[in-house]
């Protein structure tokens, strides 16, 4: 009997179902809109050595980052991981990505199988607030200590018993403790479900077969990646793109990548990228690995399981101390949401030289992060409510996707490293002192070409009370590139309309708004592809 062919396919479903079921439990039992409605979370299953076997398809930016969480938990606790333990962390320099993303790792033990875990289950969720200098914990900061509470790998649960002191310490440092407590509970429930299902799988198929299946699945994805790399022409492909700035200085921040394909393997070398920055655009290594994983995963096609096998034939060089592998105490909030997008743009730009027909032009290349907080003039959503009777609202805005060979870009959509949903206007206006005045496609903003880039979005938010706005946006100065002669997409713009006067706002920064002010955000269009025939 050929194990690979049939059992591979069956176990592919089985492991994926475990991760997906964890995700369902997390979404259903979580409290905050950010998890429940925007679905900013991920769940995954790992083998004994901490290699990812399956990840539920939720948020690409978590892809390559989750394994480092498991690794950090295992490295810190070593042999001290016991049945019923659960490790929590968010430290970007020890298995995390940015502070709002809290990860929980549960070792799975089998009765009578001794002291070694047979697998790990992990969940990661973006929490709406983890303290720090501004509500929402996505400030334009200069060091990580300003960004919120840092949690190194710690045991939140020890032998099935929760450390309530630790939980109280965490809740004392966040603005919305009740919501945090609910969401942390939901993550624990998701991990429990994952452990149960893994134990069931072992009960049904036996440990040996489950282990073998994990091994085979990793090899399977590795084979698929190797066959992909083999199909690409050997060569060395260099591409450089840049971030507008770090939000503190006005300097551009270049990111450079050289992708070298040799037979069935590849090297992805970020040497020559800018050093880590003062502002919060720094990406930790986990983000960079996620971006690399995402890009090659996309090239593989849809049906391949998301597991560690994908990166095996790919060597990633991200120099320590650079903007793609920042060291403490760098501020990193924007590395996750903005720099991750630019890393993808660089990788695609390089790979477009190898296989122009498989790679689209640049998409909008930003998530357009907008956080609005302030005093409440009237009742508002309990979620956004802080200890001081304030509100905090966070949104990201879609834009244009890049055109490709034979395909126009798509307008007004989230691309690459994010896929979170918007908050309905009618829900938002019930909950916050905000009014949306316009939400439409920014016509003509996609790059011209034989195939047109997708258009961005125009969104106008009127604030009905005095409040503070934090913008963390990109592609305001450097446009999303076109390919094969296609034009670049238009840059985004942030505008303030006050008393009928329009003025320009920078791409990153905090601003005081007065009641009646309108924030007008124009998101970038996608790049065009090919020369437009006259």
């Amino acid at each position, binding site marked *: 009997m050929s194990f690979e*062919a049939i059992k591979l396919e069956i176990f592919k479903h089985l492991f994926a179902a475990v991760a997906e079921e964890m995700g369902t439990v997390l979404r259903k039992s979580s409290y905050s809109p950010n998890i429940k409605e925007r679905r900013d979370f991920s769940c995954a299953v790992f083998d004994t050595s901490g290699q990812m076997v399956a990840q539920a398809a939720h948020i690409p930016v978590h892809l390559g980052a989750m394994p480092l969480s498991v690794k950090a938990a295992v490295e810190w606790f070593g042999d001290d991981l016991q049945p019923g333990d659960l490790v929590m962390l968010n430290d970007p320099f020890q298995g995390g990505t940015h502070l709002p993303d809290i990860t929980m790792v549960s070792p799975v033990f089998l009765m009578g199988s001794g002291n070694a875990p047979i697998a790990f289950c992990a969940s990661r969720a973006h929490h709406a607030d983890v303290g720090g200098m501004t509500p929402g914990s996505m400030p334009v900061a200069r060091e990580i200590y300003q960004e919120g509470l840092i949690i190194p790998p710690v045991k939140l649960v020890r032998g099935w018993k929760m450390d309530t002191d630790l939980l109280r310490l965490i809740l004392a440092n966040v603005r919305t403790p009740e919501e945090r407590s609910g969401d942390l509970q939901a993550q624990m429930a998701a991990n429990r479900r994952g452990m149960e299902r893994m134990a069931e799988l072992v009960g049904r198929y036996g440990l040996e077969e489950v282990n073998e299946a994990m091994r085979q699945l990793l090899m399977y994805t590795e084979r698929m990646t190797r066959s992909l790399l083999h199909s690409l022409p050997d060569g060395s492909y260099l591409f450089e793109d840049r971030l507008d700035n770090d939000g503190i200085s006005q300097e551009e921040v270049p990111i450079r990548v050289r992708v070298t394909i040799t037979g069935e393997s590849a090297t992805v070398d970020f040497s020559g990228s800018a050093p880590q920055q003062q502002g919060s655009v720094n990406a930790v290594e986990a983000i960079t690995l996620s971006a690399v994983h995402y890009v090659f995963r996309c090239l593989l096609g849809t049906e391949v399981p998301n597991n560690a096998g994908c990166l095996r034939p790919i060597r990633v060089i991200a120099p320590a101390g650079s903007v793609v592998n920042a060291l403490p105490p760098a501020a990193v909030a924007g590395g996750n949401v903005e720099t991750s997008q630019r890393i993808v743009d660089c990788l695609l730009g390089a790979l477009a030289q190898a296989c122009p027909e498989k790679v689209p032009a640049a998409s909008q290349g930003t998530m357009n992060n907008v956080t609005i907080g302030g005093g409440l003039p009237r009742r508002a959503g309990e979620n956004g409510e802080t200890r001081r009777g304030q509100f905090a609202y966070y949104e990201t805005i879609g834009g244009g996707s890049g055109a490709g060979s034979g395909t126009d870009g798509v307008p007004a959509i989230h691309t690459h490293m994010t896929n979170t949903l918007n908050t309905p206007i009618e829900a938002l206006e019930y909950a916050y002192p905000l009014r949306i005045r316009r939400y439409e496609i920014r016509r003509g903003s996609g790059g011209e070409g034989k195939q047109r880039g997708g258009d961005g979005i125009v969104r106008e938010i009127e604030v009905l009370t005095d409040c503070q706005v934090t913008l963390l946006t990109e592609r305001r100065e450097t446009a999303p590139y076109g390919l094969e002669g296609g034009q670049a997409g238009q840059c985004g713009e942030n505008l303030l309309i006050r008393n009928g006067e329009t003025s320009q706002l920078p791409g990153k920064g905090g601003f005081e708004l007065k009641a009646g002010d309108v924030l007008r955000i124009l998101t970038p269009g996608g790049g065009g592809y090919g020369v437009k025939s006259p």
Partner: protein
Amino acid sequence: MRTNPLRIGIDIGGTFTDFVVFDPANNRLKTFKLLSTPQEPEKAVLEGLEIILGKQSISENTTASRKANIIHGSTVATNALLERKGAMTALVTTQGFQDVIQIGRQNRAELYQLFIHQLPSLVPPELRLEVDERVDHEGNILATLQPVDVDNLVVRLQDLQVNSVAVCLLFSFLHPEHEQIIGERLRQAGYAVSLSAEILPEFREYERTSTTVVNAYVSPILDRYLSRLEEGIGQENNLMVMQSNGGSISPAEARREAVRCILSGPAGGVVGCEYVARMATSPADIRTHPGDQAPSGMGVLTFDMGGTSTDVSLIDGKPRITTEAVVSGCPIHIPLLDIHTIGAGGGSIAQVDPGGALRVGPESAGADPGPACYGRGDLPTVTDANVVLGRIPPEHFLGGRMPLDIDRATTALEPLAKTLHLSVEEIALGVIAVANAHMERALRVISVERGCDPRRFTLLSFGGAGGLHAADLARGLGISTVLVPPLASTLSAFGMLAAEVIKDYSLTVMLPGTTPIAELRSRLEPLTERGHTALRVEGVEEQAIHIEQTLDMRYQGQSYELLVPFSDSFLEIFHQLHETQYGYAKRNGTVEVVTLRVRAVGEVPPPPQEAEEYDGEDPGKAYLGARDVIFPQGTLRTPLFRGELLVPGNQLQGPAVIVRTDTTILFGSSDRARVDGYKNLFIEVGK
């Protein structure tokens, strides 16, 4: 009054149009199938009715020998949407929001595709029109709709060549007047108009817009179809149309709100399953044979495996309702039966991918060319695997009307066998195992994701292809019992026959949980009254009307709601429900009543069916011989039974194959089966 009209359920499927006829005069049930006529679906319907009622009554509008109540589920509205062949539809929105229909929720369907594939919007940009008006979240008018803007709208529409218009303005559920003014003018001008405040007066603008647009897009199509059908049926027969909420409705209502008829076919199946499940556990049956008591208060997982897709749903007492369906990329947020569909069926094609995994689907051989064994196609499918394993006796397929080509099935599987260095039989077993893994995952989604442990449920298998897989699936899920009803392949049409008349109403109110109960009651009253009136218009007797009132509730700040039955203790029930579903309750938290819901039900007595007396355990009269069937553990000489000849009380020890005209059922050596008083086959699944 008509005396004892016949009741006829008709379900149009891709391949067959199914008819189930109940004659109250003798309590007899009759079923048959005709080939569907996809170009003009009414042709097959009318042909079937001619057969049932006699030529005269159909074609000549004379006094018929028998009159009939016809309940009909059609795929006309669904297909118009799936194939993007609906009416040219314009959309009118609040200034600044014409693109909400296209932006949607900003997310993409597939995470890992560099080229995003999006179905074209039902309303292209040039057919989106804006009017200058705005209402806020408390229903205050910030900008009043000006008559001159409405005039302009009419003029602009004239150039657009549309005949259907959807109108969706922000917060129109709080202040419907602006939509109504526009609606009145456009209706006068001869347009088919769908107003969001009429179709779905609930918050969340994208989902409301999408639902309203789908209605505008498919209504004219359903309207034309129903007109042709009514003409053919004649006035003396009463026609009702099946909705996706599991209830029926008059054609007049259906053509106004066609969006409610999308997915009506699968809904019929679920209603049929509910009826079967209720009957199978009824006291009558238990009295007949007390030893064979079915699990009491039986919850069922329904499993409808067809040629290209498989529908699954969960009935825990009642079928589950969802208000969050998405069809062909379009959210449809009216209440409908919660049915999960995957693209795997008997026609799913097997292949080996570049990484060396054996994959089944999502590509399907469909009805044309169909599985290789049907004689036209060459690609190996799940059905071909079943044939090669001896699980479908070729000479009995579809009652022997369609001989199967085993050699062709074998030939189709050979390339896979060669690639993977396996025998054809091993490959066939693999194809079945992989297909089952797909379906097991779907069944887990519909149960586990809805918070239910599948092991508590009975697997109710219907549809043509399910009987061969059900026992193995149950084993994989830890389910102990499989139920295959006698009408397995016409259960959707049967469900329509048993469906009640249902009207759903809703209104977003966003009230605090502290609102006095008297006020909630008075806010529910207009919806209730509308339900009563509508059912009276449908001809439902007052005493048969039954009203269900529910509240969508949440803790303030949450973005999802729980459905709470309305009663004096609705607050406490909400806390309890939240605790059971989500693991905690915040009894001191601020609660919101988001949306009011009223469901008006006109009860229809289901066709009474009596359990037959048991007639011995020995199934010998149905025995057709034995054949070799290949199981994972080896080849077993397996007895073959004719399903139609099994009688109540029969007991069967696996392995066995039961052939029926419409389906084939297989169970293994550790399973046993029995036939109950309604000729339901119960398979007790062993290890």
